[in-house]
């Protein structure tokens, strides 16, 4: 018990020197329950008393943030008495600038694991086993010691149900079949909209053989729909395009597809043409609020976080042990966990992506402007 008290005192001291708000945490209670942390098992965050502790969270902002707030942040604040400050929206250039200048303005970011994997150890903190329970996440979703998976989404072919009433597309090949399915096609300008995977699947490549990506074959396939392809610069713009019914078919995230469905937009998903991806959390290297950040990252990726994420955002859990009660049929349409058997690529090859992202992104951009 004395040891625990000493650790607590040490932590409180550390808080005194690092807390930027100028209100040192003098609470005698242990802000981070070391006993719970060190067991190596699932962590009960309700044993933490983080009053006076701040942690800054950043996502892409807007409705995305509203969802994360409802899914994790509000509950985390209620559970631990910590204060979560919204730093959204973030971008990866700011992460680099903040870490390089040692002026950390957000502690946690969430996005695709690629960038976090690439910057693991330099831009992002490695998550220590002593303060995080990795056992709650299935191995197939893990990509590096820095990227903590908290849900998966997918890029899914979605088609306008008014346009293709009785004869809906059923596969990636149909996305590229302009004779059988004339109409406009929507895709994201980023290579992380997985146009290369979709093109290869459409061209008959077996899902297991998609990686390493055959660029020539992928771009040759994309060339066949170039004239009917409308590329959108960000996912919000793609969603806006769905609202205007600009795209007869679109490769869009399942999460945004669900939002559209809630707004009664006439689109339906084709899980036979989908590419799953992990949504990860990363902690900025050198943050003075590391322990607080670890607690929030741990909570968001806990079974409770995964479950709430699914019910609020329509993301899919990253542990097969996470049960999903009370999910309505409309939401089930857009949650990958209910369609895993149909998905050609349930999760992208994170290793391939972290070593090839820069090259792939530049090649795709050149294809676009060419």
């Amino acid at each position: 018990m004395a040891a625990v008290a000493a650790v607590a005192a040490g932590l409180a001291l550390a808080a005194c020197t690092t807390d930027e708000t100028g209100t040192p945490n003098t609470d005698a209670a242990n802000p981070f329950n070391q006993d719970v942390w060190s067991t190596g098992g699932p962590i009960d965050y309700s044993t933490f008393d983080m009053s006076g502790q701040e942690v800054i969270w950043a996502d892409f902002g807007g409705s995305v943030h509203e969802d994360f707030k409802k899914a994790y942040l509000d509950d985390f604040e209620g559970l631990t008495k910590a204060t979560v400050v919204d730093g959204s929206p973030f971008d990866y250039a700011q992460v680099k600038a903040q870490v390089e200048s040692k002026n950390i303005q957000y502690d946690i970011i969430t996005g695709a694991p690629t960038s976090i994997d690439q910057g693991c150890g330099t831009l992002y903190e490695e998550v220590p086993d002593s303060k995080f329970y990795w056992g709650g996440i299935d191995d197939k979703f893990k990509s590096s010691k820095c990227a903590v998976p908290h849900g998966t989404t997918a890029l899914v072919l979605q088609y306008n149900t008014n346009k293709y009433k009785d004869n809906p597309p059923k596969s990636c090949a149909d996305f590229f079949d302009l004779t059988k399915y004339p109409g406009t096609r929507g895709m994201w300008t980023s290579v992380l909209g997985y146009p290369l995977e979709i093109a290869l699947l459409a061209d008959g490549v077996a899902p297991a053989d998609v990686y390493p990506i055959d660029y020539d074959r992928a771009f040759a396939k994309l060339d066949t729909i170039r004239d009917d392809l409308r590329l959108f610069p960000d996912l919000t713009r793609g969603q806006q395009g769905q609202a205007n019914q600009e795209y007869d078919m679109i490769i869009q995230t399942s999460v945004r597809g669900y939002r559209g469905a809630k707004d009664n937009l006439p689109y339906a998903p084709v899980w036979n043409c989908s590419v799953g991806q992990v949504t990860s959390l990363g902690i900025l290297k050198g943050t003075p609020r590391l322990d607080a950040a670890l607690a929030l990252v741990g909570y968001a990726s806990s079974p409770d976080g995964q479950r709430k994420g699914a019910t609020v955002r329509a993301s899919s859990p990253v542990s097969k042990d996470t049960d999903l009660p009370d999910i309505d049929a409309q939401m089930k349409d857009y949650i990958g966990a209910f369609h895993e058997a149909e998905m050609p690529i349930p999760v992208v090859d994170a290793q391939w992506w972290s070593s090839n992202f820069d090259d792939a992104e530049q090649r795709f951009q050149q294809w676009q402007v060419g």
Partner: protein
Amino acid sequence: MPWTGRLGWKLLVLPAVAWIAVFFLFPVGSIMLRSVTEFSPPETGGLDNYRWFFDTPANVTVLSRTLWVSGYVTLLCLLLGYPYAYFMTLTRGWVRLLLLSAVIIPLTTSPLVRTYAWLGLLSDNGPVVGVLDRIGLGRPELLGNSVGVTVGMMHIAFPMMVLPLYAALLRVDRRLLRAAESLGAPPRTAFFRVYLPLSAPGILAGAVLVSVLSLGFYLTPALLGSPQQTLMAPLIVTQVRQVLAWGHGGAMAFVLFVLTLALLGIGALGSRGILRRGSAARVEDE
């Protein structure tokens, strides 16, 4: 009172110089520095980032497109803006106020909001296509191509053309037109030989503002166009924000910066020429 002396007045410029040094020279300098010190493989040193820039066909395509778009947006703004500014000088009172407000009020709204407004207006099911359809012009695609981009860019650039033009045209002594006509010049000759040259400083100011502004467009072509309309700025953003290759981004930004300086230089030379011709004309008058 020494502070009213020549030196004292010069000291007044210090805050501005400090401002420019901190918020302009320093960032531009550090961008330049990164373009020659930060490399992503396979580039290793020296001017590799610039070599990469000019060896990548997409970069060169987009650079020339950026110049071309900046040129024709400027021309279109001038063709629309000149009659508008001229008409403003003819009006008085509330009509002039109305014309002026129509140009200025959009400036108070964020370009992002205005661009999203165009997204709704120009969409396939939007009102513009609806009107075109009703008057028998069919249902043309206005988004995802250069039509949408041109409309969106002109909307944002238009005030930058009209305001300097209006200021210049207001100063033109319209009695000179009557004098020209009394000396036998038909209206067209009077316009081209008297009015137009006298309005040249306004044209030049507007053209420089609009063309420089157009070089940096980012959101408008991205949202209203397609990658086939991509300009330099989005390409830089990819390097800086997605790939985190700040050396590449620095080199691209610096190339664009040099082009902007060149445009400003041409503007400055042009204005000197105009002023010289203007004073020559005055000498002839005497």
